[in-house]
């Protein structure tokens, strides 16, 4: 046999062997693309979201044997890359995946990354369901194919204000600290608007730079003019810094409320007993009374996650998993994997699962009345739900003990 003939024959044989497999992979695999911060400043929460995605894929593939859509069976796959908490890198990664033909995208973590990446997927006619960006800008610029499990930032504070008004003694004054980024600022603005509406005075409204190394001067202002509640719409690292410096400078307020940070094990490790009494938000609790076809109940999800993954369970894992569950449920209801059909089904989605009643607004963010935050307070080391009252596992401790009393 001549060398050229041999090569031609081998190539044809290889192609014949590979081609059906490629076709099989494409026909029977639903691949979700995207990026998350596996490294960089947002890596801690990014890893949490990623494990949420992985948990849902593992459960659906292994425990449910995949999904059946329009009579065909599919396995799920993830095509998620590390964006290193860098929006520029994330946009490059997402554009590449768009070019490769990925149709369904999951979100990164952080509005500063979700915002530019969802603009790319929207422009390319692809869909993104995400649990990492709450900035209003994601949902108010007319996009039709971007869905968020969380309500937009400016609507995330309604349940908090309801709790403030129910406390005894009543909350009269609030100071808000936020960092100069798309999520934190919108959440702070939403908080101020909700507080104004409720007649609670915002006595200080303090902006910090995106990267913070010291808050001594801010805390001097807080000590000079102490509020009933100090609200920090800051990210994990800044929240830890603020709380630690509050303890060490003995800056006491009746309630310290930080929207991000206290959920993490890093916060607990850094603060120890001082973490008790700090209030935060959570968009899901394993004690919540929700259940559905995927995972079963909230408690079942928690048990499955702990049995298969090593990170400490936070609501970010549940939110990440809920993104994939929403996709699959929408595709089932559409009876198709066509982009337009899945998009329309997502927009019309209204179903209960372990995460809660999943429904999106016309702008694509989570319905605030169904998917708004629970309020959590660490009490004796346990994360207790303190509001809304109907789902509460404990009463709020207010006013909180002084730092000295918590030692």
């Amino acid at each position, binding site marked *: 046999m001549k060398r050229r003939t041999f090569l031609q024959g081998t190539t044809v044989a290889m192609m014949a062997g590979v081609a059906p497999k490629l076709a099989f992979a494409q026909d029977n695999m639903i691949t979700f693309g995207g990026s998350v*911060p*596996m*490294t*960089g*400043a947002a*890596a*801690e929460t*990014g*890893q949490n979201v990623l494990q949420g995605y992985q948990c849902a894929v593992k459960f659906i593939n292994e425990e449910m044997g995949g999904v059946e859509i329009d009579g065909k069976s599919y396995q799920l796959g993830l095509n998620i890359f590390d964006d290193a*908490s860098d929006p520029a890198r994330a946009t490059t990664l997402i554009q590449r995946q768009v070019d490769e033909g990925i149709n369904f995208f999951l979100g990164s973590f952080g509005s500063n990354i979700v915002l530019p990446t969802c603009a790319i997927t929207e422009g390319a006619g692809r869909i993104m369901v995400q649990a990492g960006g709450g900035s209003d800008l994601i949902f108010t610029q007319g996009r039709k194919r971007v869905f968020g499990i969380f309500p937009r930032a400016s609507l995330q504070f309604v349940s908090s204000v309801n709790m403030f008004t129910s406390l005894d003694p009543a909350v009269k004054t609030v100071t808000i600290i936020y960092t*100069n980024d798309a999520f934190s600022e919108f959440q702070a603005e939403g908080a101020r608007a909700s507080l104004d509406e409720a007649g609670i005075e915002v006595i200080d409204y*303090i*902006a*910090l*730079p995106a*990267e913070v*190394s*010291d*808050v*001594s*001067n*801010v805390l*001097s*202002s807080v*000590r*000079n003019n102490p509020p009933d509640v100090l609200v920090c719409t800051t990210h*994990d*690292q800044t929240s*830890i*810094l603020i709380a*630690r*410096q509050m*303890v*060490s*400078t*003995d800056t006491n307020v009746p309630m310290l409320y930080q929207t991000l940070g206290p959920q*993490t*094990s*890093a916060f607990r*490790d*850094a603060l*120890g007993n*001082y973490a008790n009494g700090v209030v935060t938000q959570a968009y899901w609790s394993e004690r919540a009374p929700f259940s559905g076809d995927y995972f079963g109940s909230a408690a079942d999800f928690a048990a499955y996650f702990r049995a298969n993954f090593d990170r400490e369970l936070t609501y970010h894992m549940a939110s990440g998993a809920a993104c994939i569950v929403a996709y699959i449920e929408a595709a089932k209801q559409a009876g198709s994997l066509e982009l337009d059909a899945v998009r329309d089904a997502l927009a019309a989605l209204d179903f209960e699962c372990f995460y809660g009643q999943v429904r999106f607004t016309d702008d694509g963010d989570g319905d605030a009345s169904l998917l708004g935050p629970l309020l959590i307070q660490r009490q004796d080391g346990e994360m207790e739900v303190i509001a809304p009252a109907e789902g509460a596992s404990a009463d709020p401790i207010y006013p909180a003990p002084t*730092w000295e009393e918590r*030692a």
Partner: protein
Amino acid sequence: MTLFLQTILNGLVLGGIYSLAAVGFSLVFGVLGIVNLTHGIFVIAGAYGALLLFKQFGIDPLVAIVPIGLVLFVTGYVYQRTIIQWAVSRASLVASLVVTFGVAMMARNGLQLVFGPDVHTITPAYSFMSVTFGPLRIDVVRIVALGASLVLLVVLALVLARTHFGRAIRATAQQPLAAELSGLNVRNLHGLTFGLGAAMAGASGAIIGIVQPFTASSEVAWTLNAFIVVVLGGIGSPAGALVGGLLLGLINALTAQYVGPSLTQAAMFLVLVLMLLVRPAGLLGNAFGESR
């Protein structure tokens, strides 16, 4: 008045930490002419080292400064004698900028692989204590950090001024050729200087670890801070780093209190640009520049 004094105190304490974190960068820049973009990695490696020693063996971060300094001294020496030396001798001094940038990226990811992406803090017994001076209040960890910074800066200044090693470093920085003709091993001294810079950075990292939360990606901010401190204070001397650091701390604190906390970085960069325009060698000038 109390608020003003409190602001000044906060600024000085913060500035002390900036000074210590920058002195190694300043020394390497002054003696070797290298803008070491791996500097922040040494700082954060020091913080991780202190965390490890504290969690595994209960060693206080202030005590851990000694072993961390030794380890990073050796690391810095080897790093300079191999990778940086190769880059500079085969290309130019500018190549060191690219090399240190690349090494910093790899090291950042390496640290994250080893220690994970989570935020870390070191919490010795005095972490949450504060002291008051009349109406003024400051947390103990920051006072301790300032004290340790001053001690280490004074020790470094004495080493540079009073010891044979220090004189050799200064001679190498001022006239490398003359130093070599006098029998000094300039290459070895460059390695030792780089090692000393890395040791100082690691020591500052151990202190920074008790003052604020850190992750591997925090290294970028500490390289940047060091650069600003050197531009403000001047190159090559502990005194320049001290002046630059304290100035940076005061700018940070006064801006945060009287202009707006969100504008601290803008103010820092504004002063940086002004200084480069008005007095590019920094307030105290280049400690070795006049002889060159």
